[in-house]
């Protein structure tokens, strides 16, 4: 099982919950999220707006405590 918790400091994507639906990828205003075959990952363009946390239909993305919006 792939774990990608804390791939990035502002959000963390729980790959065990993630259904790879792309809701967060299409929503991200900074295009910082990517959907590959079986993983979703975030990159350094993330500005911490947390829209991905809200749009995720099953709650697979959470805010990392202390992560700041920039």
């Amino acid at each position, binding site marked *: 099982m792939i774990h990608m918790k804390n791939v990035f400091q502002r959000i963390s994507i729980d790959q065990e919950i993630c259904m790879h639906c792309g*809701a967060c990828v299409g929503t991200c205003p900074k*295009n910082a999220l990517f959907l590959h075959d079986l993983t979703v990952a975030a990159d350094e363009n993330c500005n911490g707006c947390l*829209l991905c946390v*809200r749009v995720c239909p099953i709650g697979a993305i959470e805010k990392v405590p202390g992560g700041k919006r920039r």
Partner: protein
Amino acid sequence: MKIIETDVVVVGAGPAGSTTARFAAKGGADVVMIEKRQEIGSPVRCAEGISKPLLDKIDLKLDQKDIARQVKGAKIISPSGHVLTISEKQAGNEVGIVLDRVFFDKHLAKLAADEGAEILLKTSAVGLLKDDGRIAGVRAIGPSGEFEIRAKCVVGADGFESQIGRWGGIDTTLSPDDITSCFQYRLTNIDIDPDYCEFTIGSMAPGGYVWIFPKNEDTANVGLGIQLKQLKKPGEIKAALDRFISKDKRLAKGKPLDMVAGAVSICAPIEKTVIDNLLLVGDSARQIDPITGGGISNGCIAGRIAGETLAHAAETGDFSGRGLQTYEQGWRDVLENKQYRNWMAKEKLVKLSDDVLDKIIQALIEVGVEGLSALAILQAVAKKYPELVEEFKDFL
């Protein structure tokens, strides 16, 4: 590194991509279509309802397997449970078929293949190729590693999560007002009316609705969408659907056969879908009905126009933004007005209270309704209760 050369590379083998590939290849263009998944049509990310008039518009005869269920009409249910039944005749065939996308998508891809399009599975686009700043294809990763698909035009049919447009410089970013987040189960062992698609509106699904689309006698796609702007807590969508199901006696004992998550755009038409050597089609072009969230019809209709435009471009050799205007103009001629009007209607609908929605549905039950379009429904209400639809005066 391996290099493939072609006229057109289509990224994404959903209905819009396959229809684009089909009509481009039919008109003589060399087409390569890539799909990141190992199987076209799976996993399904859709409620699977379409209306019958689409089929003629894209010269499509459905196979028996494509159709899970033909329904007789639609029921729209108000927050407190008033049921407006719209027969197929009244709806002008607007409702009709619950698909089996696993077969339907393969059927559309087969039609593209029959015209000569190449198909590559488990192959993702990871970037655009450029020659002196001009878009010249995509960098792709497939089962045997990274390679280049050099093409005169890149078609982004890569869905809600589209990257192609953003890479090429077309702004497809959406406001939280214009996104609906959705969750769905295919539930079996339920006690539904298998002849009607059901839409329940109100505060259980703010800015969206709950749908029940029958797949067979005791199985249906049961899902819920909420406008992103209204979402506060992580995982709220699934929780709201679970709550709805547990409260509905017909559904409460249902057992899930699959789960589907996803998001759809519910925006006004975007400003442009074409630049030099690149076009967008389907969900990636945000060609979705903002009221229903339906995208198959629009994606296929736009796909046909895109394909025919690309076939012509392959003949003339002109894949510039100007050369591709036939597509830009063509899809707008048939889809833009309705998308814009329904977006305006959606902006107003999301503000209505449960109480007003109840009154509107009750009024409709009383006066009857001629069609299933948002416009027809509002006009029906306006005839008798203009004060209820005061908000929509401009729209009417």
